[in-house]
């Protein structure tokens, strides 16, 4: 019998449709796989085998009855623990929400449930999505399936690792500054941040409202497109949701043709600070695109040098306000101050926030509170917003000449656990290539393009497209994926070391 855990979501969907396999079989295989390997990976914070199998059985029964089902019905999925799931714990990787079970579903969750995808569980993440390594989870780090002594990237390390370790064919991530794409690059998986407003944020516990976006985490470009199409679309519950029709991403992924496309290499996103092995794989991939008929040019966007600074002002500012609601009054942990009789509500709020939040969260709340303070607002938050306007203008100008932009997704491959934990600035610098897309709301996709020579670890290439042109990403990425797999004679993940299977 073939190993169901190795199948792509598209393969599973077809096997399910033809009744070669049942959703219960697929789900059980994945639940078993999670039981076997997640002790080493720690991709999941919560596994809901019972709920997933119940959904699977329900889908199987409906299929047997001849009901018209969604294409992905019965294909299991993992959901990042930052999305509200009714009846399932949602901690955001924080002690603050330990034990909180939402009474409502995020719109993304509701769409997944409505389409009949069994939810395997909730995946690990940096606390409130703040971090680039998943080491800031209050429940312990996730390990990279390629080398379990290394980080899987972050904040969505859990979703990426779950998919890379064949614990799930599909996962949902969220991306505020690269939290889908960078873990994708570091684990050899596909990650897409859709256009801002393309996927509803209702029920996504906000870090930075103007930057957050949920998206697919998968092993293939087509799978990402299938999941993208399922979760995207206008939501009246999210005022920033785009009312337009969802771009035809699945059709684009099936088209996979770069002939005649103009692709721009972003000059500023390379060179100093970028690992040689990363640049080598990136350059080879670009050559493949050229060989397939794309016209590749170099593009300069000088204002990019302000992007990282602007991001680390906007993000903490919004986060400091978004996280104010965690005050121990209505939900979450309540820790009374030690040695205080009859504490006031204010004292309980302060001590609970002190106990419930980790250091990275506190660091960003403090930064953001400072940046928004009267007298500093114009210099910090105000200037950062101006940078977004300038960046947006410069990218629009760049896209006037090219269909897509490309860069390495992350300057480096996965680094060892603990390596940058005490150096937040070094960790922040790893986001340099991914954050511009969040600042200006454009879509981005990370595709695995090989292993770096120095460490045999995955390298990601990032495609960027104009707002609402998410389909361009899928077309080009699917083409490059095919060229690479032809060259390699298989998928990149098939070259990942086998994980030890626990009993």
């Amino acid at each position, binding site marked *: 019998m073939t190993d169901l855990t190795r199948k792509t979501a598209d393969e599973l969907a077809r096997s399910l449709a033809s009744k070669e396999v049942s959703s219960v079989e697929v789900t059980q295989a994945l639940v078993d796989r999670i039981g076997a390997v997640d002790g080493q990976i720690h991709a999941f914070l919560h596994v809901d085998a019972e709920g997933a199998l119940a959904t699977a059985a329900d889908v199987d029964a409906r299929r047997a009855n001849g009901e018209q089902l969604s294409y992905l019905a019965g294909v299991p999925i993992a959901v990042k623990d930052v*999305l*509200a799931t009714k009846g399932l714990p*949602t901690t*955001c990787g924080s002690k603050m*929400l330990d034990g*909180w079970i*939402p*009474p*409502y579903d*995020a719109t993304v969750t509701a769409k997944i449930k409505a389409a009949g995808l069994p939810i395997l569980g909730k995946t690990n993440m940096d606390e409130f999505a703040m971090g680039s390594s998943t080491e800031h989870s209050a429940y312990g780090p996730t390990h990279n399936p390629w080398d379990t002594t290394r980080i899987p990237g972050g904040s969505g390390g859990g979703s990426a690792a779950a998919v890379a370790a064949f614990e799930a064919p599909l996962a949902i991530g969220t991306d505020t500054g690269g939290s889908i794409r960078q873990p994708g690059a570091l684990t050899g998986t596909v990650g897409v941040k859709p256009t801002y407003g393309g996927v509803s*944020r*209702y*029920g*996504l*516990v*906000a870090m*930075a*409202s*103007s930057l957050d976006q949920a998206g697919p985490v998968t092993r293939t470009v087509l799978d990402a497109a299938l999941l993208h199409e399922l979760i995207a679309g206008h939501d*009246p*519950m*999210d*005022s*920033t949701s785009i009312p337009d029709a969802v771009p035809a991403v699945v059709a684009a992924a099936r088209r996979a043709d770069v002939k005649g496309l103009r692709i721009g290499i972003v000059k500023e996103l390379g060179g100093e600070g970028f690992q040689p092995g990363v640049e080598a794989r990136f350059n080879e991939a670009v050559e493949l695109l050229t060989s397939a008929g794309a016209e590749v040019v170099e593009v300069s966007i000088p204002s990019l040098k302000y992007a990282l600074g602007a991001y680390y002002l906007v993000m903490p*500012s*919004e986060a*400091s*306000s978004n996280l*104010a*609601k*965690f*005050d121990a*009054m*209505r*939900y979450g942990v309540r820790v009374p101050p030690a040695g205080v009789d009859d504490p006031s*509500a*204010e004292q309980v*709020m302060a001590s609970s926030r002190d106990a419930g939040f980790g250091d990275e969260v506190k660091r960003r709340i403090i930064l953001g*509170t400072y940046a*928004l*303070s*009267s007298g500093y*607002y114009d210099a910090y*938050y105000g200037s950062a917003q101006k940078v977004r306007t300038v960046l947006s203008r410069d990218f629009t100008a760049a896209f006037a000449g090219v269909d897509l932009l490309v860069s390495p997704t992350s300057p480096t491959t996965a680094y060892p656990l603990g390596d940058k934990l005490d150096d937040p600035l070094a960790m922040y610098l790893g986001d340099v290539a991914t954050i511009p897309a969040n600042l200006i709301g454009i879509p981005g996709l990370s595709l695995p393009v090989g292993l770096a020579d120095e460490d045999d670890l995955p390298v990601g290439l990032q495609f960027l497209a104009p707002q609402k042109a998410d389909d361009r990403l899928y077309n080009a990425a699917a083409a490059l994926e095919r060229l690479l797999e032809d060259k390699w004679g298989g998928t990149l993940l098939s070259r990942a070391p086998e994980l030890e299977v626990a009993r």
Partner: protein
Amino acid sequence: MTTETLVPFDEALTRYDPVMGLEIHIELNTATKMFCGCPTEFGAEPNTQVCPVCLALPGALPVVNAKAVESAIRMGLALNCEIAEWCRFARKNYFYPDMPKNFQTSQYDEPIAFDGWVDVEVDGETFRIEIERAHMEDDTGKALHVGGSTGRIHGADFSLVDYNRAGIPLIEIVTRTIEVPPEKAPAVARAYVSYVRDLIGGLGVSDVRMDQGSLRADVNLSLKPKGSTVLGTRSETKNVNSFRSVERAVRFEISRHAGILDAGGKVVQETRHFQEDTGTTLPGREKSDADDYRYFPEPDLAPVSPSREWVEELRATLPEPPAVRRARLQADWGFSDLDMRDTIGAGALDLIVATVEAGTTPQAAKKWWLGEMARRANESGHDIDALGITPEQVAEIQGLIDAGRINDKLARSVFDGVIAGEGTAEEVVVARKLEVVSDDGALGAAVDRAIEGDPDAAQKIRGGNLGVAGALIGAVMKEMRGQADAGRVRELILEKLS
């Protein structure tokens, strides 16, 4: 707490000029909350009108209530404001246990309406109040402090929070500094709040009930020494629950500030709570210029950009401006200028309108509202519309008078009964046995006894001096405890003595 020395109002004004501004919060009567679909009905069981959005559960997002924006624009237009072509919400960040998000979604430097004015009248004189802005925001929850003697947070055993109010749409109307002769400040403040109540009430966008908190007025006041241009430190008085209290709060704060300044002290910048029973204010939350709300544009909400066409459509829905309406009503009713001034001063304009609509003549409606009801309002300290009697009930009672079933004097007793909740006017008349007696048998016997009891008067009437008939009528009325049909009594007397 130190006892404050108060300087009498008139004396305070010999040395200081008040600098006054008013903030009015209006709760809109939209069916749903500002940013979610929860109902807004007043008085529901605590925490039954809540959802993930207004409880600020993790992940929930706000969506602007279009009806609230419409109400805000109509209100802005009625206040003669400009309407922003593009504006945003902003987050006002501060921690408070009854505020679910720990920020209020308000507007900061981009209000929906700005630069307006209204003219209010006090003692026949018109004063222009300039409106700086009117902006949209959401209300907080409501904390109830249990235990302790004051019902306030200090000394309470525990506190409960009702989030039904959290997210109710509010419009805050902020005046510029109100420039009026100092001695007029308290009356102008009252007249302004009363005027805004009528104006907004006329739009139908709010219940504008001060007693239920759907209209809340805050008085910002400071004093500056006469001739000085340096502004003093201001206090912000909240909890002002009636028009009368607005006036009293201004007077009290002027006296209090003057007392502090005379003694060489410093006024503390703080929130004060008006005390209805004593007419004084007590300190609340201390504020300072260091309070930093870290305002920034609300990233979860799209900007609001009302089209000019829509604004003009809404302008066309505005009711007739108050000054025009008053002139029309005065002509319709045949009131003198003085009648009209008294009517407005008593806050009785809409009450008389409604009473007339219910079938009473304007003169009779005026008689009751400016006489009996104004007296009762004055004695009880309530606003005239909060006495527990409606224009419809007044009209019903006048109807009973017109039908000859009761008289004006008996009507007062009917009012007592209706206000005391004894039922409809009809029921009160029956229960209290107030109906006038016009039965000739009973009246005739009483008239006979009156004639017997006062032969002198009877003699004079027989001699053609009808002027003394009143003495006999009075005697009959006395015997019948006021419940005789006076007209019929007169007729009977004249018949018997002709």
